[in-house]
């Protein structure tokens, strides 16, 4: 089964002053990650402090939107099973996500994936991932 995901299924994230830029970029179809202006290291999730060095001089940078599946789990105790995953981005940090647009039984650790955006309940777009090279 080729599972896409329905907006009604996606709980909407809250948008805070220190994450508004991230979510606005998501609505424009752009994945951003936290980036430190002091040590230069990326981080995820975005926040007002660099968790690597403690600097408050942080911003966002655009990610390529590609990565590999570090781990995943298909949740079965529901009418429409879905795949929770952790994707390691090519920039060196990773994020929690869902893997969509694929056969859930074919998902594998190490698989190459790319970002796609899906609207959540409120309309706010959230980044999800699908196998690279389309469906």
């Amino acid at each position, binding site marked *: 089964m080729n599972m896409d995901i329905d907006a009604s*299924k*996606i*709980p*909407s*994230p*809250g*948008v*805070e002053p220190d*994450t508004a830029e991230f979510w606005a970029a998501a609505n424009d179809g752009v994945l951003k*990650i*936290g980036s430190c202006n002091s040590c230069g*290291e*990326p*981080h*995820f*999730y975005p*926040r007002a402090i*660099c*968790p*690597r060095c403690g600097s408050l001089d942080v911003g966002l940078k655009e990610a390529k939107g590609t990565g590999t599946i*570090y*781990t*995943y*789990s*298909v*949740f*079965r*105790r529901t009418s429409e099973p*879905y795949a*929770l*995953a*952790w994707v390691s981005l090519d920039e*060196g*940090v*990773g*994020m*929690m*996500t*869902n893997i969509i647009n694929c056969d859930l039984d074919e998902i594998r*650790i*190490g698989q190459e994936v790319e970002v796609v955006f899906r609207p*959540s309940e409120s309309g706010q777009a*959230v980044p*999800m991932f699908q196998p690279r090279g389309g469906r």
Partner: protein
Amino acid sequence: MTINGKAYIAGAYEHPTRLATDKSVSQLHAEVAAGALEDAGLSFKDVDGYFTAKAPGMGPVSMVEYLGLKPRHLDSTEIGGSSYIAHVSHAAQAIAEGKCNVALITLAGRPKAEGMAVVKGDFKGPENDFEIPYRPVVPNLYALSAMRHMYEFGTTSEQLAWIRVAASHHASHNPNAVMRDKVTVEDVVNSPLIADPLHRLDSCVISDGGGALVVVSPEIARSLKRPLVKVRGAGEALKHMDGGRPDMTSSGAVRSGADAFAEAGVTPQDIKCAMIYDSFTITVLISLEDLGFCKKGEGGKFVSDGNLISGVGKLPFNTDGGGLCNNHPANRGGITKVIEAVRQLRGEAHPAVQVPNCDLALAHGTGGWVSTRHGSATLIMERE
């Protein structure tokens, strides 16, 4: 300063209920407190230190009043199910510094009666907005670690199942256990998949109830009539995602365990039985590796073939049946690990699971989610 030998666990009590439709959560706190104090031979008026984590109202502010306590030392450290194991350590520190002499620790909850079988991430942390759109629930968060552990180390569902099998053997001797039937590896791997690769029988029970502990100074311990259970060492840690660079196959036990063993001056080989927090089978496997009972990645082999069954294997674990079969009060447990360790050290465990000459025991808690973020607390206790 070390807490090694500075405090003793004089009272331990596990509520016998597993479904508390007829009791309030505060009432359960009161009943377990009374039970532990009676076990120690002490009374409420002797208590001068109080410890709890999540509790009705404003935690200790509400509970101290409800119980009628007048403590001079308070601690509401909240690191999930590992809180109560850390509380023993904190109580020992407070006693060593003269801040209190009789510390009462309570846990109670009734998720079963309240229909809170599936715990969602209702903790509004800053990470929440970057996770809730993807519908993490407790089982699939633990499953992320299990899947990765299988990938990195070749761990199998059958190996994880042995953890449940061992717990079920122990629970079969516990009249209060929620699930008392012995199960086989086949039963576990043939039970429905909840979140790949974890099955229904890889998961702990949902139960109401609670437990309490009384930690006292050496002078008071020696004045009481109970066997002496000495605090030897403790450690705690908080494992998280490290800014987006997680290692989901290891836990806070790497640090909390090492600190506890160092303080106690003993090694994993000295431990006669281990009570390991067991929200899921994978939690136990990762904890055992990180505590040093076996090498990283060899947990699957270590837990197989009954190695965790009392009287059969080298490391009897969760001899009360654990959270997997016996009791997981308030969806956290933790305190039950110390309670069963105290029973073993006193020689008061069920005869069928009592470890002979049990003079050194370990309790370990994981509070939160093993894959993403959790508190970790390890405690080593000795029968004097």
